[in-house]
């Protein structure tokens, strides 16, 4: 029998993505970048549509749409007259920093105040891949059930904002919204929590104001077209 020997490696598998994310952050220095996360059907794209309807007069927003195969979301966003680029992951369950880096040259970054990156619908792995964003925000629709923060804590831990969507349906479900908020706070005491209904538009203004408060002052003045 041949000898067995051990090769010590200690190679951090996150390094490549982290280096690229840092480069993206540098490229996007003047732009406020929000990585928008959530399950399929939570209302990420609808929230984004509501947000664009409210914000396009007040800030210059660009959008990257992550999707496994289709351009359906990018088509919806294009109606708002904002620059939008689709990334198809071709089966991959999350965006990574190099996918984002590849499409950044398609934006006129000097003319952007904010870039929203809508990630692939998934509560698991997008939480763990830094894209070079300033903040992560997770959309959770209350119809998904109030156990989700406890079952997928990482995404709630890593998000600066949690948008609870479909509040208009609260009366039709057994979801306890205050318990849901309590669970989110136990995982992430510093999270900003927004209660919205993207169907009626309720609460979206508060979320939009908060986004605007995050804009980087060094960029172009948002109100001048």
């Amino acid at each position, binding site marked *: 029998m*041949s*000898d*067995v*020997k*051990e*090769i*010590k*490696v*200690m*190679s*951090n*598998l*996150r390094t*490549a993505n982290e280096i690229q994310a840092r480069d993206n952050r540098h490229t996007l220095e003047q732009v406020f970048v929000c990585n928008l996360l959530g399950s399929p059907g939570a209302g990420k794209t609808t929230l984004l549509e509501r947000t664009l309807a409210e914000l396009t007069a007040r800030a210059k927003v660009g959008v990257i749409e992550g999707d496994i195969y289709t351009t359906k979301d990018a088509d919806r966003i294009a109606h708002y007259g904002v620059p939008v680029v689709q990334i198809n992951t071709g*089966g*991959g*369950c*999350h965006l990574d920093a190099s996918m984002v880096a590849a499409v950044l040259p398609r934006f006129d970054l000097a003319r952007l105040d904010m870039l929203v990156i809508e990630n692939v619908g998934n509560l*698991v*792995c997008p*939480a*763990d891949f830094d894209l070079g964003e300033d903040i992560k925000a997770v959309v959770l629709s209350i119809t998904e059930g109030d156990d989700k923060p*406890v079952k*997928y*804590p*990482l995404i709630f*831990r890593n998000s600066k904002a949690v948008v609870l969507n479909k509040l208009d349906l609260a009366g039709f479900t057994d979801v306890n919204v205050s318990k849901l908020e309590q669970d989110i*706070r*136990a*995982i*992430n*005491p*510093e999270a900003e929590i927004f209660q919205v209904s993207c169907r009626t538009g309720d609460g979206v203004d508060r979320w939009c104001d908060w986004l605007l408060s995050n804009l980087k002052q060094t960029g172009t003045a948002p109100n001048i077209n």
Partner: protein
Amino acid sequence: MHEMSLMSGVFEAIDAALEAYQVPRVTKVKLQVGRLTNAEPDALDFAFQAFAAGTPMEGAVLEIELVPLAGCCKECAREFEIEGLVFYCPECKSPSIHIVRGRELVLESLEVEA
């Protein structure tokens, strides 16, 4: 699906590590996987077998060390294991916690036939 993409990174790291050696067969691959990575050991093993087929890693044992989640209190500097994903300091009850362990994804070592 998540584990497949993680494992593709593991195999890139293995290839890079073996570049300097002539290795006919790898017998063991050791990984450190933090609890907070959301990676399931069974799914990692399944992905490992799929990637290993037809390579020097075929038949190798995948050894996973699950790294528990640990935090350090920003107020009182106490370090502790975070259980049940409740992010409060057991000492001073502060919710301001810095995660110090549990996010690892490290290719630790390889055992190879020399």
